[in-house]
């Protein structure tokens, strides 16, 4: 069956339908990660977005569910060059197309994804939709133009946990404000022994204080941090009262809580290959990124925070720290998934900040080994 991708600027790409029939709209973005489509699909930060995989061969190793980063896929639509019909992997249980269908996500394959990536890069991200409907191109474009801007949607509310989840552990008690957390982050903390309390995004500072955690982790999540004044306010009330660790959206929330501003990047950072320099050690890590907004460096100057990490490609702020208080943030993903695990040391740094030793000192935390 044919599917089309229509952008608000009138661009139409026709291809093969994979996944659900019907249509879905959102902000059309791209990621350059070559592996990890399962992680991409299930990353809550992609809520509200149609994700284009720049690497053209997707679905090769099937879908196993082993690599799910949340309970379900969150992308609105999925755009690939080629979707493997005959995947093969010892863990594979299903195909990409079947998975998309199962979760009612329309997808499109067989289009020139490099054209789309270059188009979005040079013209900025666009609203768009994937559709299998038999309607004229113009109708699809017109509908794309009616889609809400991503900055106006309550995307966090759709992906946050509805109720407190307690994941018991022998180590320090941690609160994790779930704005769209990934399993990898929870696992990174639990592997270090943390007793993790996953909290709904509207949890108040008082509720968190009542829990008396050793620290608070602010998770990644979708959308514009400007839309999260409640979360920013809670962080301000917790400022200095417990260690804070912000990841991705959490980093932006902490930045805003300190008084910095955020802005929308022209086409975001999405991929597994972004070099980030640690300004203290001089060392560079290759990081996983998935964000459309960033903290404005100029605005950091007036706050208590200092920039600790910077993106080597475009120089944007990638990490903040408080000189005295136990507050650290990174714009990227120490859990990888997909992507490099080079930054998993940040979990150790966080444990140190909590004053706790990692659960298994020195033990590899990334992976099983033969």
């Amino acid at each position, binding site marked *: 069956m044919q599917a089309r991708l229509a952008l608000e600027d009138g661009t139409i790409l026709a291809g093969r339908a994979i996944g659900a029939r019907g249509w879905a709209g959102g902000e059309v973005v791209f990621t350059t990660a070559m592996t990890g489509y399962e992680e991409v699909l299930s990353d809550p930060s992609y809520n509200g977005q149609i994700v284009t995989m720049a690497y053209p061969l997707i679905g090769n190793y099937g879908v196993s569910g082993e690599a799910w980063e949340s309970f379900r896929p969150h992308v609105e639509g999925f755009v690939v060059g080629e979707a493997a019909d005959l995947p093969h992997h010892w863990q594979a249980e299903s195909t990409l197309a079947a998975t998309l269908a199962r979760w009612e996500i329309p997808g499109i394959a067989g289009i020139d994804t*490099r054209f789309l*990536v270059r188009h979005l890069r040079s013209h900025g991200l666009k609203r768009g939709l994937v559709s299998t409907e038999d309607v004229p191109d113009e109708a699809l474009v017109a509908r794309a133009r009616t889609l809400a801007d991503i900055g106006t949607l309550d995307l966090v509310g759709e992906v946050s946990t509805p109720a407190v989840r307690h994941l018991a552990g022998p180590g320090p008690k941690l609160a994790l404000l779930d704005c769209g957390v990934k399993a990898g982050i929870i696992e990174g903390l639990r592997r270090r022994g943390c007793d993790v309390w996953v909290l709904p995004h509207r949890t108040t500072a008082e509720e968190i204080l009542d829990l008396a955690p050793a620290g608070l982790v602010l998770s990644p999540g979708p959308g514009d941090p400007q839309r999260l004044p409640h979360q920013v306010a809670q962080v301000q009330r917790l400022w200095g009262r417990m260690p804070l660790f912000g990841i991705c959206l959490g980093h932006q929330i902490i930045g805003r809580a300190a008084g910095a501003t955020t802005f929308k990047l022209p086409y975001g950072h999405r991929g597994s290959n972004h070099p980030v320099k640690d300004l203290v050690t001089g060392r*560079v890590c290759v990081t996983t990124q998935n964000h459309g907004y960033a903290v404005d460096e100029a605005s950091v100057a007036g706050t208590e925070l200092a920039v600790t990490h910077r993106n080597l490609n475009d120089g944007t702020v990638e990490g903040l720290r408080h000189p005295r208080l136990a507050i650290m943030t990174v714009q990227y993903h120490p859990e990888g998934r997909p992507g490099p695990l080079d930054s998993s040391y940040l979990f150790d740094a966080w444990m140190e900040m909590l004053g706790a030793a990692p659960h298994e000192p020195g033990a590899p935390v990334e*992976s099983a080994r033969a």
Partner: protein
Amino acid sequence: MSGGVSKVLVIGSGPITIGQAAEFDYSGSQACRSLSEEGVEVILVNSNPATIMTDVETADRVYIEPLTVEFLTRVIARERPQGLLATLGGQTGLNLAVALAEGGVLEEYGVKLLGTPLEAIRQAEDRELFKEAMRVFGEPVPESVVATSVEEARAFAARTGFPVVIRPAYTLGGTGGGIAPDARSLDEIAARGLAVSRIHQVLVERSVAGWKEIEYEVMRDRLDTCITVCNMENLDPMGVHTGDSVVIAPSQTLSDREYQMLRSASLRIIRGLGIEGGCNIQFALDPASTRYYVIEVNPRVSRSSALASKATGYPIARVAAKIALGRTLDEIRNAVTGETFACFEPALDYCVVKIPRWPFDKFPYVDRRLGTQMQATGEAMAIGRSVEEALLKALRSLDQQVDGLDYPPAAAWSREALRQRIAEPCDERLFAIAEGLRRGMLPQEIADLSHMDLFFVNKIANIVGMQLGLRGRRDPETLRAAKRLGLPDTAIARAWETTADAVRAIRGREGIGPVYKIVDTCAGEFPAQTPYFYSTYAREDEVPESPRRRVVVLGSGPIRIGQGIEFDYSSVHAVKALRDAGLDAVLINNNPETVSTDFDVASRLYVEPLTVEDVLNVVERERADGVIVQVGGQTGLNLAGPLAERGVPVLGTTVEGLDASEDRGKFDALLRRLDIARPAGGAVRSVAEGRALADRLGFPLLVRPSYVLGGRGMEIVATADELVRYLESAFAADREHPVLIDTYVEGTEVEVDAISDGDAVFLPGIMEHIERAGVHSGDSIAVFPAQHLGPDEADQVVDATVAIARALGVRGFLNIQFVVKDGRVYVLEANLRSSRTIPFVSKAAGAPLVRLAVHVMLGRTLADLGYPGVTRLPAPARVSVKAPVFSSEKMAQLDVLLGPEMTSTGEVMGQNSSLPGALYRALVAAGIEMPEQQQRALLASIADRDKADAVGLIRRFVDLGFTVYATDDTAKYLADHGVHAIHVSKNGDPETALRLVHERAVNLVLNTPTRGRTPGRAGFALRRAAFERHLPCFTSLDTAEAFLDVLTAIKAGEIPAPHAAMEVSPL
């Protein structure tokens, strides 16, 4: 930033051999440029003249000298560099650096080893240190044990489980070993292995045969920043050398968890070893779990890193050189985007397939199975947006008369033969899999047999299915789908029983054509300026318009015997000449190892197959003003006619001129008209015709098939029986083409490389071959300028060259081979293209031959260029010698004897004021050991026809203090002629001749063969043994005589004693 280092010595990798090919010219020249950018003075040493690296422009000073500790020490003493960069010259460079360090040379002269420290090199190279290092880093290596009894082997297997690999210690090529799947076969193989091992030892190792083989290319700087440039997956699972495997980048069947697991391990390893620069790490990954083993670490730039560089656009050698100077990854700009830094990991939005090019087509009697010893001479790379597209492009890039998975011999394979080719890795495996699928085998069955991942088998099945489906459907949509899958017009035409031109015409009507996309290292995330393109069937084309005139240069494709790096040298110089002339040089090539496919060499680089369709597509897209076909070896030349027929302007000599030189009849007529002699002969189409011609000409005769490259299948026959045998097998193999029969003129072979504009002729000089005619020119030792040619003979050569150049209307290159006998000059053949000897002659004569040729092709006259009329360059002050290098020890069944069929893979050059001095350097550079003054001995086994000539030679050896051993007839003949020789038995029991060689009781072997290259004969065994023991083995008396001249000169004190270096001086 260069750590106080302002002068750096770079060691090249020497001659091209199997396993160490053009990739080190690419990495070496890139590194030299990179160092120069940093303001460092670069001193280069390499013995291989056919390299861009040894061009005087590449480094501040270039030494073409043997790569030995002695010669390098001389260079160091003379130049006093502060640093040594050793990780860019392959294993040769690395080994020499270790030897220089261990010998105290570096310390003595205060030379710092740059980049990766010695300790890291040792840990990676030494098996035991490597295992220990991996243990410390917590990285698993396959368990192994050295066993001296079957019981010990059994006990090990009981601990680790089956299968296990058993390798006897100290046998070459793993003979006597094997994989034991169970206890019974373990007992059997271990017992056999212990028996054949000289020290009664076997290595027993956990077998990971069938596991996925995955490689990572990793970089690290002094601040401990690490990145992986890319990973690669071998389609052939563990068990086949990665150089012999079909490789795809990036990995296709690894989940992100697996990808990152191995990536993290790579980073732990490079950090643990403390490598500063690049390294390559190979893993075995269980296809059914997350278990893995580290197989190997290469602490240097390698063949894989060349492939990774070309596959991603990330210039590994350039960056590694800067890291060695102490720069950090975040300081080095990404030359591709110009905006980002070297500190990132390339993101691909295409896939890359590499297929090895094996020499089995030239050696039909050699076992085609693949294993742990690399046998490929080169490789082709292709880029596509799907596995199928890249695979099909790579297959047709091989330039082996296949345009995909259709392989005519496959249809005749029996079921068993087919299954064997699927199950046991061999060069025909992809074709066998396709044939199996066509015959109805299920993909799963093939995956089970081959252990190839089912994902890849299904991709092959897609191609096969598309081709079968094409037969019934001829609509534009089917055509579009076939083109998107990567099928060439020729394959579609076969299915449709029409011509490729007809398919092309339909495509033109339907608007089905390729677009070209940029290789940009970042999957489109950033704007890129790289002029590096590949074709695909998609929506958007990214080739920018250019206001300049554009000329397409056809490269030479994968390296094979007969068409090596020399042609890449010419391609690169053609590109440079065009760019200097203010034109856009558009290069098409598909060899990832070469300098020409470095993205900043040409104005625009297209990594594409060199077929009519693929070249036409580029020519049309570029709206090129012309195509240069003369620098890409036979590959380029073969395209001239088909391109011209389709309206493409071929620059330089016309297609008619080219044809007149290649067509036997036309060329004969031309020579007759010009009154130039050539050995009498003719073309025959049957055995009877052949016999009749032989009766007229008399023996010996030179016989060969028409239209072939590199003397394939050429033989000298001395009797009617031999002739008939040859003709029968030749016509059995190929009924279509005639066999050429010529009188064999046994004289001195001389060769000319000239440039002509159709009137004026530029001759840099005349080359003379040490071996008499009959030995392929690529395998001969060549001397420039000729030393034994009389003035009259030289004039005849020049006159003939000028006459032929004018008669053929040569505009560009002209290479002519002559044989001189009794004062008479005969023409053997003429090639109107850049020849194998162009780089050698360019360097020996100091003449920019390619530049001149390109200017002529662009329409200028030699007079315009300052060379009116006939120009003969004066003889240079130094004599230059080119010596061939063979990779015989790599191919267990390959016979290495000089004859009309070329077998060498590379060459070296030696220069000196005297011929013996230049010969000395060339022979040492070629790896020939000069025997010490004491205890000299040789073994002689001489064919009857050479015995008379051999006596005098052997007497000279005796005069130099050699003890002579000789086999049966030879010993008798020598005794009869007053030369004392110790008789040893050739075929007797025990085989004493063979034992002498095995025990290295002699320094050299003199063996001229009776006939044939059939393995199993005594001579063959003797030659093999000599090569395996690294003893010089001369199969031509002429080579032996040259060697004698060197020894004589050493004795006379004219050149230094063995194991001493001569004074060195730069090019």
